């Protein structure tokens, strides 16, 4: 119990000491993951929408595929990114390994199946009158799509948050594709992993609390913008 509470106390002390290195780590974490989710989510929503609205052969297999792809460990995705961007890899010449770009690519890949699977289930559950009503009222398909998005926004926001949670918290891919380089590609989860291997559990928990606090703020903002919904009937 003792170490637990002292670790927590220590973590709060660290939080407010305004350490520059700590803030670079926090910034890296959010800058990378926010960019990744902002790229991944719109594409995933479109793919999920098409999967829900079109009838084509292999559709059900595709749905099952995206569901299963959620089970790929982050480190395997990181490994793939690594092998592709490694000097001896096919895209080695781009020199993207151990940069924010390779981390973003890894996190996009990591969140994509989750985003597709969850938003697909939201699109699937949508009342088909939403689409029909907006189309018959003269909305162009892309406008009808946005109307649909608005009607099922709670499900999509939940998917978005889950996707963000997945990548802001993941360590395997950032470690492998980013390299955990101090002052550059080190983010909160890799820093936590490092503190843990060092046996510095207090530091690790401190960073976990920082992450949680930032996530709470982000979620608060999202909740604020999404407003309150009224159930359909």
């Amino acid at each position, binding site marked *: 119990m003792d170490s637990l509470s002292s670790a927590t106390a220590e973590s709060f002390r660290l939080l407010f000491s305004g350490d520059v290195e700590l803030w670079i780590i926090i910034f890296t974490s959010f800058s990378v993951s926010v960019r990744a989710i902002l790229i991944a989510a719109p594409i995933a929503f479109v793919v999920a929408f098409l999967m829900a609205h079109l009838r084509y052969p292999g559709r059900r297999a595709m749905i099952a595929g995206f569901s299963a792809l959620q089970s790929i460990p982050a480190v395997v995705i990181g490994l793939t990114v690594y092998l592709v961007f*490694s*000097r001896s890899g096919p895209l080695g010449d781009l020199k993207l390994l151990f940069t924010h770009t390779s981390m973003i690519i890894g996190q996009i890949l990591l969140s994509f199946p989750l985003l597709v699977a969850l938003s697909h289930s939201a699109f699937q559950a949508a009342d088909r009158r939403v689409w029909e009503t907006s189309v018959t009222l003269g909305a162009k398909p892309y406008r009808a799509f946005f109307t649909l998005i608005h009607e099922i926004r709670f499900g999509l926001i939940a998917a978005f948050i889950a996707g963000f949670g997945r990548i802001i918290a993941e360590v395997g891919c950032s*470690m492998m594709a980013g*390299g955990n*380089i101090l002052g550059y590609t080190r983010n909160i989860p890799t*820093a936590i992993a490092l503190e843990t291997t060092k*046996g510095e559990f207090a530091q690790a928990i401190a960073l976990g609390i920082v992450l949680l606090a930032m996530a709470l703020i982000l979620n608060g903002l999202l909740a604020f913008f999404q407003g309150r919904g009224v159930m359909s009937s």
Partner: protein
Amino acid sequence: DQSQVIRMATTTSTENSGLFAVIKPVIEQKLEIRLHVIAVGTGKALELGRRGDVDVVLVHAKPAEQSFVDAGYGVARHEIMYNDFIIVGPGDDPAGVKGLRDAEQAFTNIAENQALFVSRGDDSGTHKKELSIWEQTGNKPDGSWYRQVGQGMGKTLQIAGEMQAYTLVDRGTWLAYRENTPLKLLVTDGADLRNPYGIIAVSPERFPDTQYEAAEHLINWFKSESAHTLIAGYRINGEQLFYPTN
């Protein structure tokens, strides 16, 4: 099965060297125990010991081990074997360290040339060794040429390979990786590059339910003749990795 379980915390590099795959079955059979090997970073291995979650620790960070014992967490440090560190780097060797037999000199060259250097930066035994060499040179490594990656030895080696950078590596990891890295072995056999491994039983006074007796048996086995033969006989690609301490 019902046999007694001994938990040993050790460093990832030790486990990764493949040594345990050879000696673990022998130990389990000889001592009639089950050995659970928890391979983690040096810092975490010692922390597991400090918290009483393992019965014995096997690491390579002499000063840290000594303070572990001094603080009463461990009974005594037994040095059982050693290997050595080497310095590897890109084939074109921009800092000109190839052939040196002195780590301090090599580091000085690297710093003067501002050649890329990758540090593990994870408080591991290797990292501590690296820091102690920097200290001897009197230069504090600083600047964009010095990159701390905070990862295990293997990963660090990979990253150094990708960056065409220098790094300090233990010979075991080097032997396991050298086929897959563009880096070259540049500095070896320095007197300041020795890497001793110590084994410590967790103090039964602090943690009464620790398997102290079995841990002592284990340590004694490591000091036995048959253990020495096994350790000395372990080879990767025909090269000996560990040298038993007598």
